[in-house]
């Protein structure tokens, strides 16, 4: 009876809240705390996640990935066709769209936005540094304005992934007037067509964008987004807890535990298509023997690593790519944590225990490696338990990437995010003999296994998915046996936010438009 009364009382008290929750009112300011400032909001020039995260709220492409899959759907283009020879892509553009500065969106705008990237003679070409061409418009040789609302892109060779490239953040359409006016400063004053328009940028502090009232599609539900730079993870956590921000990005795993425990806050998780690994330089004579590499795998306790440093926000890895990607070989039996066995393997391989291995630790944290230095310290201790001495080596990120791609390390930590969710991206791109050529090797294990490489190449030529799967399963077995990397973990990406927000999206790559997000008053 007593319980019933309490329940009743609670219900009565909460009823008004329920009413509010039922129909979240529109408007409000969404404050989004993140680890760093953006660099350039012209996404054709953006190289960092913080720029892209902000830019995609304001700029739009011809086409875009669906909200939660990798299917391409129209955005500023209404439809498209590919010529029979596969060389010409024709896009019909949406009519009646205006840029934030009031300029009309049309074929000319698409032409200027694209031609500035690939045509050295275009007047806007010198205003920017056009990065990652291979992922964007690199294959396009010519841009034709067919009429005001029709554009054709011509490639030299048939290039099927072009549509996916256009759906990435790298090919935004900007107002030609603004590009002419701001010249090389367009990245500081982006003018696009998106649901939010740029308002103000205080460097190292905040970027403010307003709801675009003239948006061609569904208008954004919040009036304003403030992206607030809060470099320190603990400060972001505190801002989230106090309600000062609605969303806090890139919290460390320990903080996420606190967010989960807080009933005002919530965490959504999404398995990411990434891998964090420890690459073993197979070019070094003392690491050439596969038994040595297997020994290293046996020495590392991935479960504990994930339980402690990742705070459970990952699954242990045994293959080069995560189970969410097709052809994942689940039949592989992971190397168990066994220091004694590791030591024996080292001894069997005649490993010189007086040698101190260089263990290179990444200087930056990534979703696939949230605490690289602590991970390195732990690995160092695990190796020591197996009798192997190692020294942690750190340097700046640029040098790290350059030197690891030259094969100067013994062991190095790196990771990969598989953007297009294809095994080829991981296996051929990171482990084939073709990519093991220094300098500039993406295969930082410098592992040159002819059989493995053949399997990858064969798979590239094969269009039948089951056949390809077979090839990849086999390739993973070779990888497992040879163990050029010790794959460590596939991390989970998370978004922590206040429960007063609704419909917060999370793609595996973490990039979403916040158009549909609403906030309780």
């Amino acid at each position, binding site marked *: 009876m007593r319980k019933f009364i309490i329940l009743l009382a609670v219900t009565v008290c909460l009823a008004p809240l329920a009413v509010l929750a039922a129909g979240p009112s529109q408007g409000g300011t969404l404050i989004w705390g993140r680890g760093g400032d953006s660099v350039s909001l012209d996404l054709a020039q953006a190289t960092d996640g913080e720029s892209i995260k902000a830019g995609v709220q304001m700029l739009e492409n011809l086409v875009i990935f669906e909200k939660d899959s990798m299917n391409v759907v129209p955005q500023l283009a209404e439809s498209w066709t590919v010529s029979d020879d596969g060389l010409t892509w024709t896009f019909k553009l949406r009519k009646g769209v205006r840029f934030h500065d009031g300029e009309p969106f049309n074929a000319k705008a698409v032409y200027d936005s694209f031609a500035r990237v690939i045509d050295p003679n275009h007047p806007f070409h010198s205003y920017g540094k056009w990065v990652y061409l291979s992922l964007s418009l690199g294959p396009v040789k010519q841009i034709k304005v067919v009429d005001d609302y029709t554009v054709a892109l011509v490639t030299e060779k048939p290039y099927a992934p072009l549509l996916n490239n256009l759906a990435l953040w790298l090919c935004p359409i900007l107002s030609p007037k603004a590009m002419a006016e701001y010249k090389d400063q367009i990245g500081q004053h982006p003018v696009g067509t998106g649901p939010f328009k740029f308002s103000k940028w205080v460097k190292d502090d905040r970027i403010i964008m307003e709801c675009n009232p003239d948006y061609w599609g569904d208008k954004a539900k919040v009036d304003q987004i403030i992206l607030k730079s809060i470099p320190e993870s603990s*400060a972001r956590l505190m801002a989230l807890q106090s309600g000062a921000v609605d969303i806090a990005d890139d919290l460390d795993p320990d903080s996420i535990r606190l967010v989960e425990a807080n009933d005002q806050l919530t965490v959504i998780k999404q398995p990411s298509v990434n891998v964090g690994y420890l690459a073993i330089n197979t070019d070094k004579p003392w690491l050439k023997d596969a038994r040595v590499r297997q020994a290293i795998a046996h020495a590392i306790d991935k479960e504990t690593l994930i339980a402690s440093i990742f705070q459970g926000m990952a699954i242990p890895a045994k293959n080069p790519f995560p189970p969410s990607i097709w052809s994942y070989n689940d039949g592989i039996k992971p190397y168990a944590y066994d220091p004694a066995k590791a030591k024996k393997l080292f001894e069997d391989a005649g490993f010189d225990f007086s040698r101190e291995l260089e263990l290179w630790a990444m200087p930056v944290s990534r979703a696939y490696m949230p605490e690289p230095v602590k991970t390195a310290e732990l690995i160092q201790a695990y190796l020591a338990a197996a009798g192997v001495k190692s020294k942690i080596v750190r340097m700046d*990120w640029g040098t790290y990437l350059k030197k690891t791609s030259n094969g100067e390390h013994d062991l190095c930590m790196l990771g990969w995010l598989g953007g297009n969710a294809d095994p080829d991206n991981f296996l051929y791109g990171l482990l084939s003999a073709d990519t093991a050529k220094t300098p500039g090797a993406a295969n930082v294990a410098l592992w040159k296994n002819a059989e493995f490489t053949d399997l990858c190449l064969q798979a590239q030529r094969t269009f039948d998915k089951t056949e390809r799967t077979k090839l990849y399963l086999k390739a993973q077995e070779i990888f497992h046996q040879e163990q050029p990397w010790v794959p460590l973990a596939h991390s989970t990406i998370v978004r922590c936010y206040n429960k007063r927000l609704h419909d917060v999206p999370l793609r595996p790559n973490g990039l979403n438009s916040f158009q549909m997000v609403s906030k309780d008053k």
Partner: protein
Amino acid sequence: MPLGYIAKRLLQLVAILFGVSVVVFLMLRMIPGDPAQLLLGEFANPEELARLRTQLGLDRSLPLQYGIYLQNLLQGDLGNSIRTNTPVAAEIWGRLLATLELSLAAMFISTLVGVGAGVVSAVRPHSAWDYGAMFFALVGVSMPIFWLGLMLIYLFAVKYPVLPMMGRLPMGLEVPAVTGLVMVDALLAGQPVALWEAGRHLLLPALTLATIPMAVVARITRSAMLEVLNKDYVRTARAKGLSEAAVILRHALRNAFLPVVTVLGLNLGLLLGGAVLTETIFSWPGLGRYVVDSLMGRDYAAVQGCILVFAAMMAVINLAVDLIYVLLDPRIRVNE
């Protein structure tokens, strides 16, 4: 002091800045790490890297790069940031104001408290107050301020959350920027709430940054005052029947100020250095943090610009200290 002297000092300043620019330019190029590689990260391929290097002009010879840099510099152009492609001067300016606001607040606190504590200690030497104040001053000069900042955050923002732990204003609160100093802007805009909030946000970082200068000033003020209080002219002032306050503030302190001003001037350099740490801890969007970030990002133009600004500020401060000397001590006026 003749204008010629100032002109000479300014000329020296230009010479030092030139030297600094060469040194910084060369040192930056000696730092391992390729800006292009840093910008493009782990997903770039060698061709994209090479193209970016060309675009950034990194494939030119060093003398040529410096020549171009110097030519732009002489036209007042500090160059564009490699990372953001924006003019470095603009990037620096906004952050400089943030650093200035923090430094001025810290300067204010350290001078007020430091001089006050030093004077009281000197007036009552070997009293409990004196020993207490001087012990705290000694702890102050020994303080790792990055630790102090963290502990202040823990105490006043985490344990007893009475003060904000970072930033300059609460999120969502805006003040029209006129001077770039938020407190001044809030005052100009007549927004008492913003003024109050800006002050609250400023308090912990300013206190952190003020700690060492405050302690140094207290120590120097005490010893200078002790010396001055033994001077004959202080006795003369007392013999005139002046009140103790007039004797100490008008006759003693004014003379004790000379060494204090020297130290304050040196301390401003200390403040600028301390700003690097304080801004990092309190997420203060200032120049100190910017220069470290730029250095880590191998943003050559930005680092060069910042260091030039720092060096120029130090030199201007030194000049200002010399000028203040003249105001304070009439004896120098004739000698110069």
